[in-house]
C-alpha cells in the first residue's frame, strides 16, 4: 500500500505535464497540427470492388504524405448495398472511429442528431476548403447551415449507359436527345435483333431510377424536394404524370417481360447488356463507369458511353438526379487532427486525381479535369449545367423507401392508370405514418 502511495504523485505529475503539453498543442493552429499529425486514424469504410481499390490507393497516398499516421479501416457488416444497418450496429456497439464514409443525407442527419458528428465549420475556414469546394457543395453537406460533411465525389444518376456497338448495329447515329427519339429507338434496336432495349434491374431498388429522373423532368427539383420532405402528397397529379410517362415507355415495348425485370439485379443487367448483348440501355449511377472499365475490361468512350436523360419538353429538362459521397468526422474519434487532415486531403489534387483515374468525378476544383474519360466528361458537363436533386430514395425515411420500391414493382407489373392510382395511394398511406 505504502509503495503504491509513493508511486502516485509522480504519475499525477506526468499526467498534469502531459495535459499541459496537450493544451499547448491544441492552442497551435490546425494547419500546424496537420503537418505533424501522427497516430492511428480509424475510418468506417463499407465500399467494395473497384471503389475499395480506389479508396486503398487514396489511403496509401495520404499515409505517404503523413508517414506518422497509420490508417485502420473498420468495415461494418453489410447487406444488399445498404451499409447503414451494419454502421448503426457498430456505432451502438461502441465502435469508435474518426471518419465515416457516408452517402445518405438522411443518415447524416441521424448521426448528427445522435451527437456522433462533429461540425466542421471551423476547419472549413482554417483549411480554406471554400477554395476547392463551391458553396453549393458546402450546402449539400450541411445541416441547418452548419457543415458536417465534405463531399469528395459525386455521380450523375440521370445518365443512360449503352454499348456503342449496339447503336451502330441499329443504325442510330447519335444517342436520342428527346423522349420521342428515345421511344422511337426501341423499334430500331429490336429490328437489329435486340429483344430488350432497356434493362431494368427491378429486384431491389434500381427500377426507381427511371421514376426519379422522370419526376425531375416532369415536375422539377423543387417539387421533388417537397415530395422528399412529404410537403406534397404522393397522390399529387405531378407524381402521377411522372409514372404515366414511365408507363408510356413500358407500353412502347422498352423492357420485355416484367418477371425478368423483377428477377434481375444490377449485375445481371450489366451482363445482359455488356456481355450477352441482349439489352441496350441502362439508367444507373456513375460507378458503372468503373465497373465497365475495371471489371468488364471495356474502353470508355469506345466500347461504351452514356447520354443524358432525354428531354421531355415539359419545362424541366435542365434537371438531373445526383448522388454523392462525403466524409463525416466524429465527436469521439481518438485522432481529430488526423481526421481533419484526411478531410483536407480528400479534396486535394492527389486524392482527386486518383479518383478521376478510376472514373469518379470529384467536386473539387483541384481535380485535373483532363484525367476524366469521355463518358465521365459527358456526365460532369451535364451535371454542371443542371439543377440537381439528390437521389429521392436516399432522402426518404427507411420504412417509406421500402414501400416505395415495392409499390414501384407493382407498377411495373401493371402500368395502367388505375393501378398507378392504387400504387400512389399505397405509398402515400405509408408516408403518412413514416415522418
Amino acid at each position, binding site marked *: 500500500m505504502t509503495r503504491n502511495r509513493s508511486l502516485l504523485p509522480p504519475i499525477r505529475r506526468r499526467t498534469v505535464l502531459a495535459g499541459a503539453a496537450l493544451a499547448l498543442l491544441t492552442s497551435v493552429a490546425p494547419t500546424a497540427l496537420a503537418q505533424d499529425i501522427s497516430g492511428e486514424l480509424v475510418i468506417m469504410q463499407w465500399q467494395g470492388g473497384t471503389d475499395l481499390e480506389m479508396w486503398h490507393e487514396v489511403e496509401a497516398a495520404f499515409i505517404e504524405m503523413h508517414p506518422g499516421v497509420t490508417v485502420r479501416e473498420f468495415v461494418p457488416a453489410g447487406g*444488399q448495398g445498404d451499409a447503414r*444497418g451494419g454502421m448503426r450496429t457498430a456505432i451502438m456497439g461502441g465502435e469508435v472511429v474518426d471518419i465515416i464514409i457516408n452517402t445518405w443525407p438522411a443518415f447524416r442527419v*441521424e*448521426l448528427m442528431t445522435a451527437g456522433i458528428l462533429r461540425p466542421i465549420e471551423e476547419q472549413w475556414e482554417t483549411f480554406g476548403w471554400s477554395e476547392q469546394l463551391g458553396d453549393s457543395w458546402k450546402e449539400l453537406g450541411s445541416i441547418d447551415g452548419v457543415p458536417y460533411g465534405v463531399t469528395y465525389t459525386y455521380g450523375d444518376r440521370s445518365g443512360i449507359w449503352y454499348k456503342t456497338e449496339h447503336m451502330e448495329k441499329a443504325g442510330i447515329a447519335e444517342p436520342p436527345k428527346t423522349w420521342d427519339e428515345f421511344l422511337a429507338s426501341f423499334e430500331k434496336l429490336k429490328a437489329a435483333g435486340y429483344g430488350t432495349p432497356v434493362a431494368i434491374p427491378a429486384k431491389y431498388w434500381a427500377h426507381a431510377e427511371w421514376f426519379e429522373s422522370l419526376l425531375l423532368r416532369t415536375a422539377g427539383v423543387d417539387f421533388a424536394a417537397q415530395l422528399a420532405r412529404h410537403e406534397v402528397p404522393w397522390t399529387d397529379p405531378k407524381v402521377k404524370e411522372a409514372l404515366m410517362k414511365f408507363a408510356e415507355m413500358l407500353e412502347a415495348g422498352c423492357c420485355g417481360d416484367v*418477371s425478368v425485370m423483377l428477377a*434481375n439485379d444490377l449485375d445481371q443487367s450489366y451482363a445482359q447488356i455488356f456481355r450477352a448483348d*441482349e439489352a441496350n440501355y441502362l439508367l444507373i449511377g456513375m460507378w458503372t463507369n468503373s465497373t465497365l472499365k475495371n471489371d468488364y475490361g471495356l474502353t470508355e468512350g469506345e466500347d461504351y458511353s452514356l447520354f443524358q436523360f432525354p428531354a421531355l419538353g415539359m419545362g424541366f429538362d435542365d434537371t438531373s438526379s445526383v448522388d454523392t459521397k462525403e466524409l463525416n468526422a466524429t465527436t469521439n474519434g481518438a485522432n481529430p487532427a488526423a481526421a481533419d487532415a484526411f478531410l483536407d486531403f480528400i479534396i486535394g489534387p492527389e486524392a482527386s486525381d486518383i479518383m478521376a483515374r478510376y472514373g469518379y468525378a470529384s467536386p473539387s476544383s483541384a481535380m485535373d479535369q483532363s484525367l476524366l474519360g469521355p463518358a465521365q466528361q459527358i456526365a460532369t458537363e451535364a451535371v454542371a449545367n443542371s439543377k440537381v436533386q439528390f437521389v429521392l430514395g436516399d432522402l426518404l425515411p427507411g420504412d417509406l423507401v421500402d414501400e416505395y420500391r415495392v409499390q414501384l414493382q407493382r407498377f411495373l407489373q401493371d402500368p395502367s392508370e388505375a393501378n398507378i392510382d392504387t400504387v400512389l395511394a399505397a405509398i402515400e398511406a405509408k408516408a403518412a405514418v413514416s415522418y
Partner: protein
Amino acid sequence: MPETVATGEADVGGISSPKGGVRRRPLATRGWRLKDQPAAWLLIAPVLVLFGISVVYPLIDTIRLSFFDIRGLAPAKYVGIGNYLTLFADPGFRGTLVTTLTFTLGTTAISVSLGWVLAMLCAFTPRTTLPFRVMIFTTFGISEAVSGYMWINILRPDSAGLLNTVIGVFAPGFSHAWLGDPNTALWALIFVASWSGVGLPLMLCLAAVQSIPRSVLEAAYMDGARPAAIMRHIMMPLSMPGVRVAIFINLLGALRAFDIIYVMTGGGPVRATETVGYFMYRESMTQFKLGYGAAATVVLLVAVLVISIPAIIQRTAGAR
C-alpha cells in the same frame, strides 16, 4: 448386525457403528467435501453461465426491446405492446405469416417425404447405395448462401439459365423468370430448400429402418412376404420415429429460414417470398426499427415454441 439406513450419504460414506445405526463419515479423510447437490450445481455452473449469456440474456433483452420504439440511432421510447398491435395490424406482416406457413409446410413435406422414400429404397441395398446417400447428404452440408447462388444461376431467366435450357430442349423457345414471377418464386425457393434439406430425413429414416431387428425382417421373409409388403407393413411403420424427428427438425429450420431467401430473392418479387425471418431482418437491420423487429422475433419464437414444446415433451416421455 444393526440395520443400516439406505440414505444417499450412507451410500457414499456411511459405515456401521458398533453402537448401532450409522456413523457418517466422508469418503475422503482429509480436506473438505461438498454435498451432492451443491457439487452438482458447481459442475453445471459453467454451462449455466454460458447458457445464460448466450441464450437467456439475449432472449430477455429481445423481449424487452419489443416494448420500445427504436428508430435508427434515436433514443428508445417505451410503447408497451404498441409494436405487437402495429405488427398484427400490418398487412405486410400478415402476408409474411402466410408465406412462412406455406414455405415451412412445403419444404417439410417435400424434403421429409422424399427423404423417407429414398431411405426405404436405400434400405434394401445399403452398401451399394452408400455413394448415392453421401452425395445427397452433402447437399445438407452446403451453406445455404452457397447453394442459393448456385440455384440463382440454374434458375436465371435468360439463355444461360440451366433449367430454362433443359426445358427448352423439349419446348423450344421456352423461357421463364422463376424467381421474378410472384407465382413461382416461392415454389422455386421451396424446391431449393427441400433439395438442400433432403439429406437429413434420408439419414434419420434410414437409421430408423436399420434399427429394425433383423429377426422381424427374417420372419417376414420366412412367411413369404414380398419386398413391397415388407416395406409397407414393417419398414414404413417402424421408421416412424425417424420421420417424426425429421419433421420436427425440418419444421424448426424452415420456420427460421433466412439465408436462402436473402440470397435468392431478397424477399421479393413484391414481397412474395418474404417470411417472418426475413421481415424481422428487414425491419431490424435495413430499416433499423429494432423494437418492431424484436416484436416480430418474439412472434416467431412463440411459433417455434408451439411446435417444439409438444415434440420435446413427447421425446422426454419416450426417454423415461
